[in-house]
């Protein structure tokens, strides 16, 4: 109780340090030796909480300071009633607590990447008003037109014909979208289709050329409508943003080197996220095709043809490998789609699943997954 702490006393006016000892007396006052100041009640000083083995600061109201590394003595003064700020240090100083914290943080990161972010972005995406989603999509169409896509070469009659078919495919209930179908030359994106957050679906001339029946194109349009009905592109944008915010808030001291490692979970999540979305869009297309009486083989047929075109006909194309692995698609962010969609085909964004997906549409009567 009457143990003193050795340290330095600073008067608050100069940088001079005085070697001194501070101890507590019976009246709960701190007494300095040598007596550079009178006794001060413990309640009238501010004692810094402990961080590792860094010195403790006992700050007097006039700006003077006593600094000591004798944590034992300081903690005794603090054990007087009215002080209990050392709980963080107690957590920090026990290895078991640190390991417990580590386990919970790891669990939290895993859960939020796997479920939390996708789940919350789904609900945010549904709640976002049109005043946000429509400009987002318009901007995306504009950027893609500028940077990647070309004007369509299709005959106006053909466009009208396909657009009329498109109107028949749209959901009858209120959707929150103003659906429209646009045709563009795909440029380096080739045979492809995109669903943008404003309800615009873009189909490339190359895709139209690959189709042997209009029902095949309709099945693809239904798949894209499925993406829109599930707000997939919005969800992906929100997921990216929230993950970035999450990591930077939690790990405030990540430097350039740290951010390398931090990037990895983002990428991992992106891949599985997309695969799940494809399944959702497929389910929607499958159900709607059955409902509308369209034979579901059409989807399987065009997928097989596109996959064959990508893997076998263009073997010498330098980005062949990227075609099947690229998991990003239909994202409204123009900068990202510009970088990542080179060669992406919506219909088999994850290669191992392509056969599975085809098989699903081959079995006409298979129940929805």
């Amino acid at each position, binding site marked *: 109780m009457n143990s003193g702490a050795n340290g330095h006393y*600073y008067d608050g006016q100069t*940088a001079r340090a005085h070697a001194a000892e501070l101890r507590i007396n019976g009246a709960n006052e701190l007494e300095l030796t040598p007596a*550079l100041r009178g006794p001060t009640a413990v309640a009238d000083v501010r004692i810094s909480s402990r961080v590792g083995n*860094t010195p403790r600061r006992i700050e007097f109201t006039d700006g003077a300071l006593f600094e000591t590394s004798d944590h034992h003595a300081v903690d005794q003064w603090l054990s007087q009633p009215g002080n209990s700020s050392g709980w963080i240090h107690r957590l920090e100083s026990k290895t078991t607590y*640190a390991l417990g914290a*580590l386990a919970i*943080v790891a669990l939290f990161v895993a859960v939020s990447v796997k479920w939390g972010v996708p789940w919350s972005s789904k609900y945010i995406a549904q709640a976002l008003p049109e005043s946000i989603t429509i400009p987002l999509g318009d901007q995306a169409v504009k950027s893609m037109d500028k940077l990647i896509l070309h004007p369509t070469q299709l005959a106006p009659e053909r466009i009208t014909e396909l657009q009329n078919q498109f109107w028949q495919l749209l959901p009858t209930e209120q959707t929150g979208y103003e659906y429209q179908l646009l045709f563009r*030359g795909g440029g380096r994106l080739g045979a492809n289709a995109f669903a943008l957050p404003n309800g615009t679906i873009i189909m490339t001339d190359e895709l139209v050329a690959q189709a042997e029946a209009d029902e095949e194109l309709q099945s693809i349009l239904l798949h894209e409508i499925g993406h829109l009905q599930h707000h997939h592109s919005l969800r992906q944008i929100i997921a990216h943003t929230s993950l970035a915010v999450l990591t930077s808030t939690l790990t405030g001291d990540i430097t350039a080197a740290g951010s390398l490692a931090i990037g990895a979970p983002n990428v991992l999540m992106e891949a599985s996220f997309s695969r799940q979305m494809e399944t959702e869009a497929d389910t929607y297309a499958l159900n709607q095709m059955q409902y509308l009486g369209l034979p579901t083989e059409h989807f399987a047929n065009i997928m097989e043809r596109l996959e064959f075109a990508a893997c076998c006909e263009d073997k010498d194309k330098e980005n062949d490998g990227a075609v099947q692995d690229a998991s990003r698609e239909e994202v409204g962010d123009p900068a990202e789609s510009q970088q990542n969609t080179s060669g992406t085909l919506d219909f088999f964004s994850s290669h191992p699943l392509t056969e599975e997906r085809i098989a699903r549409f081959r079995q006409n009567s298979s129940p929805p997954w």
Partner: protein
Amino acid sequence: METIQPAIQHPEQTDEPAALEFEFLGSGREYFNIWIVNIFLSIITLGIFSAWAKVRREQYFYGNLRLGQHHFAYLADPVQILKGRIIAFGLLAIYWAGWNFVPVTAMGLLIIGVLALPAILVAASRFKMRNSSYRNIRFRFTASFTEAYRTFIKPIAIILGLSAIGYLLLYQIDPETLTAMANNGQTEELPDDFRVIPEDFLPTVFYLALFPFLPYLDYLRVKLLMNHTRWGNQQARINAGAGGFYRVFVVGFLLSGAIATLAMVVVFAVGALIGMTLGEIAEPLLPAGVVIAVLLVYGSMIYSAGYWRAERTNLIYGNTRVGDASIGSVLTFHQVGKLYVTNTLAILFSAGLLIPWAHVRMAQYIASVTSVTGADLDKVVMDSDAQQGALGEGMVDAFDLDIGL
């Protein structure tokens, strides 16, 4: 306690040594606990605790930094930092909301950022300095917003002017040529009515105009920061010209280019050698070879970044005096490069768990090669106008942004 003078003493007499060494006393093991526990607390409080976590991390690094017999201290109030973060989130929300009505283009965002930068620099430096203390005397940053804008107005005007000229020149080129330039390397034919609009090039033109001024801007920033920093009644002064910054920049640039090229040459030579000696048998080794090659080239680039860090730090601190004291800073390229590479590898292969260890190692190294000479610290007194200044700075209290010095 040996070097501390007795309580009553004449100011002329001092037994502080002439040269004071910096020392960092923290350990990776100890900091790991603090780091992970604070992340944990930030999570369960939905990010609110992150302000306290930041203060504790800073306290750990300041408090373990010892110069002579005395420790530095970080004194920021977490509540102020929390307020700052809430304001930052609010601004972001306003930006998102406003984007609906007035979509800001990439160029517009760039201009807003450039214009806001001096103010952010001043606000953040004030906050950081005022909350840093050594021997119970706080540091202060005394530059006004006006001074910051006066410092940067000329180079910013020149850069924007050059961008405008470049943009106008670009406009003279006919869109056909521009389109061809934009699609350089693209083999397929483009439709006749497809064009690139010159606006797309605006940010590129800006960066091109900015590039040659980067060392000069860095110099202006460092000069502004150093020459307006006070510790008590001691004024800091930097005595380095823009030339030094250009030298570090150019040499660093050439060096990283040379090292990366060397790494690639080695990779190709070794690859070719293996390919020639083993032939077909070597084919399964190819993916592993590619990974090693990429690691080697990236590693060499990270390593050469050590030159920039070491030489720039030496240039800045080696030429800075605080009052009568001068600072010695003798970082070496090889040591910093080695730390960068090993820290990066450690962080990557530990899934981030060695981040605290990496930070501590860097702090230990920098402290071990930094010193102060000619200081008569006992004579240092608090600025008479320090209290008054603190009141005026209350406005920007909320501004805590991590801008490295």
